[in-house]
């Protein structure tokens, strides 16, 4: 049991950055992102015996994190709304990441303007490198829906970032 805990701790260290970053792109709130990531890892620990190894451990935990977000959204209709000032949010974002360049911060802000499905699909496919089929499995959605979310999300991102560059 102690060996399992140690091994699980190593898995958390390896994947906490990806899971927390993914959660932030879903909910736009660093504190809530950490809560969702924590809940995802706790659920993963409880259900470790049910992990069949069909995908990677990381993709499994990301799927759990996505479902935690959806449950939270159902409980709290205001989930995803950015309620505080833009400057405060930027300061929180900068603290959340280890090092983030201004250009990368612009991109993170633009991702927050997408709806959760688009942000999730793009994060999993473009940022974390999962294939469309793997993203469909993680988000439990049809492949066609995933491709649509990615396509629409990328179009929105291009528009937002071009508008920012122009201003």
């Amino acid at each position, binding site marked *: *049991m*102690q060996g399992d*805990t*140690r091994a*699980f*701790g190593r898995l*958390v*260290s390896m994947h*906490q*950055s*990806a899971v*927390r*970053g993914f959660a*932030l792109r879903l909910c736009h709130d660093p504190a809530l992102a*950490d809560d969702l*990531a*924590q809940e995802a*890892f*706790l659920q993963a*620990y*409880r259900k470790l015996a049910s992990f069949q190894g069909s995908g990677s451990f990381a993709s499994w935990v990301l799927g759990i994190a996505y479902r935690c977000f959806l449950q939270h959204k159902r409980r709290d209709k205001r989930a995803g709304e950015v309620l505080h000032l833009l400057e405060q949010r930027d300061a929180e974002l900068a*603290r*959340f*990441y*280890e*090092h*983030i360049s201004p*250009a*990368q911060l612009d*991109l*993170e802000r633009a991702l927050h303007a997408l709806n959760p499905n688009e942000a999730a699909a*793009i*994060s999993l496919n*473009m*940022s*974390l*490198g999962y294939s469309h089929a793997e993203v469909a499995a993680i988000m439990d959605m049809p492949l066609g829906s995933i491709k649509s979310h990615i396509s629409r999300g*990328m179009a929105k*991102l*291009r528009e937002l*970032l*071009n508008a920012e560059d122009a201003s």
Partner: protein
Amino acid sequence: MNKATQEMSTLEQRLSRMPAVAEGDFSTRLALQLARQRLRPRPFYLLAWACALLGVLLTLPAAGLADATAKFFAPISARSELTLHALQQTLNTPVSTVTASPELWLVLALLLVLSLALTLLNALPD
């Protein structure tokens, strides 16, 4: 490469570089939550504690509690064979001679403390 394609590849490149998240106290908080989860009652620990408690009840000399507990767990056939006279005799006789041994209380107390310590040690994170 036209402008749209160039923009797309730049955007894809930026997206592929997901910034690392500062760990902060995340791992510590998660470890504490895991420890709390593991301290929650589990069937094995409940059974162990129940056995320890039963052992204490069986050796307590106070007010015939040991007798009552032993009679409760006595086989049904044994109970049914008891005559009134035998029952009176049973009530007057200690269930076990060890009831008169106070040293056993100390051993039981030590076992209880050891069981609690092992439970906590097992639940704490490494």
